């Protein structure tokens, strides 16, 4: 089984979000980048397929040279080879188009991406990719088993979950549940050494027009101070929620 894991290189969850150039660009100064948390769950599940079902695992990212440490980390965790598509990830559609080209070339059976990235937050790349390469697609995926060419996936729905039976080729939008938090791996010394020798191929894409453009960013308006209510005066809280906030 040939498996591809899509890796989005995103600001660490503790990052403060600021913008520069007249609020048109994300300010990366002082920001730590990590593997998108949803992708990390997917990568860890991919390691299981590698170890238990002999899958080969490639990782791919669309981005500049600054994303290479993130790809190297994925190699250190155990992926076999990495591909970097040398382009700025301008919008979901563009990223999906580049990934689709690579996915077709590699003839992957299974592509694991994340439910959403924590930076752009589009929740769109995996679905678009699936549609472009005419693969089956399951998002919000919290469990995945492969048996030959059939797949059984569990998808989180609003208020519950559903089990889906489908066939490869398949694209997944994964999240926690695919593996547990405690299954996540930290690269060890051996992994880091081996990762240096693994192939990281850089591909230049053909030009692609994006369908959406970020015009300007905004930060949420600063909020007023909290109104503290005495623990002995619960009636006051109910009164405020009813008459002032009008939410009960």
């Amino acid at each position, binding site marked *: 089984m040939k498996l591809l894991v899509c890796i989005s290189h995103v600001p660490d969850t503790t990052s403060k979000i600021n913008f520069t150039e007249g609020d048109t660009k994300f300010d990366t100064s002082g920001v730590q980048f990590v593997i998108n948390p949803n992708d990390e769950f997917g990568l860890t599940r991919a390691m299981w397929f590698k170890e238990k079902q002999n899958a080969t695992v490639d990782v791919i990212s669309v981005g500049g040279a600054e994303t290479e440490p993130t790809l190297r980390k994925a190699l250190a965790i155990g992926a076999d080879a990495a591909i970097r598509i040398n382009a700025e990830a301008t919008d979901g559609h563009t990223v999906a188009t580049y990934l689709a080209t690579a996915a077709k070339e590699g003839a992957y059976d299974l592509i694991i991406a994340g439910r959403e990235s924590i930076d752009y937050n589009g929740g769109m790349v995996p*679905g678009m990719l699936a549609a472009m390469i005419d693969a089956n697609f399951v998002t919000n995926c919290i469990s995945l088993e492969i048996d030959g060419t059939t797949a059984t996936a569990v998808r989180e729905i609003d208020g519950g979950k559903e089990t889906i039976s489908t066939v490869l080729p398949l694209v997944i939008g994964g999240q926690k549940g695919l593996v547990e938090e405690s299954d996540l791996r930290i690269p060890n010394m051996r992994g880091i050494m081996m990762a240096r020798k693994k192939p990281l191929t850089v591909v230049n894409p053909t030009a692609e027009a994006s*369908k959406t453009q970020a015009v300007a960013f905004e930060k949420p308006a600063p909020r007023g101070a909290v109104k503290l209510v005495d623990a002995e005066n619960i009636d006051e809280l109910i009164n405020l929620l009813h008459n002032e906030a009008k939410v009960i």
Partner: protein
Amino acid sequence: MSVLVYIESEQGKFKKAAFEAASYGKAVADAMGSSLVALTFNTEDASELGAYGVEKVLNTNSVADFNAKIYADIIKQAAEKEVASVVVLSSSADSRYIAPLLSVGLKAGYASNVVAAPSSLEPFVVKRSAFTNKAFCNTEISTAIKIVGVSNNSFGLVENKTTAQLENFSPSIAPSSTKVTSVDKASDKVTIADADIVVSAGRGLKGPENWGLIEDLADVLGAATACSKPVSDLGWRPHSEHVGQTGKPVATNLYIAIGISGAIQHLAGINSSKIKVVINTDPEAPFFKAADYGIVGDAFDVVPELIEKLKVFKAQNA
């Protein structure tokens, strides 16, 4: 030309998020001087949609079970039939599943998590939340057809009385190798996605045995229950209740956080809720800086009393 809205229903009833999507669609249609068409599945009576400005309803009875690919294809055919220039969906799990597929099918740019009506039609610019609610991004959609995913509880319900004409729609349906084999869903519980109020608790509750308190409070308020990440990692509560940057986003009218410290990852996911109430023993807990109302106190004293007082309040205001 028209604006098309995809209307979801649940057990034969239209979802509130669908009415919100229709309200949004009506605002766009009015601004463009066009009309609002809705697409429903397996509906007999669509008159309720008239309240939100829907003039025409295409209903299809061609599929029984949900299938994202097939639904996306049907919405595409409806959009083409109605010459839609904007297609509006909600932010439900199903809508978010469908929208990217539809986007490729219609060659239409898609903006998700949209929180406000377009600030301009030419160019078409919408405000969406990004960086897991830590910021907003004004996004231009530059394709002829535009797809907008409206964030829950962001636009609200706006009534616009008209009469909705129901029309039968028979799209062509391609076979699919994807099938839902089982659904596991509590029908008696309010879901985080659909709730107006969410009651959420963290490690301050000490252990799973104390969650009766949280469920009781949720019951009185008709609320959904949620929790912080460590609580689900510890197995005290199911993963589906984990909210925050790496869990579910929450955008409700009222979010009550009990024994949750207010870490940046937690706040990121719940920030777009309108009113936030915090109950925490520690006056220095960061959550107080992000809240509208707060009580410094022990959950085990405050919550039981809150439940009793709310029961009295509910009885009086019934």
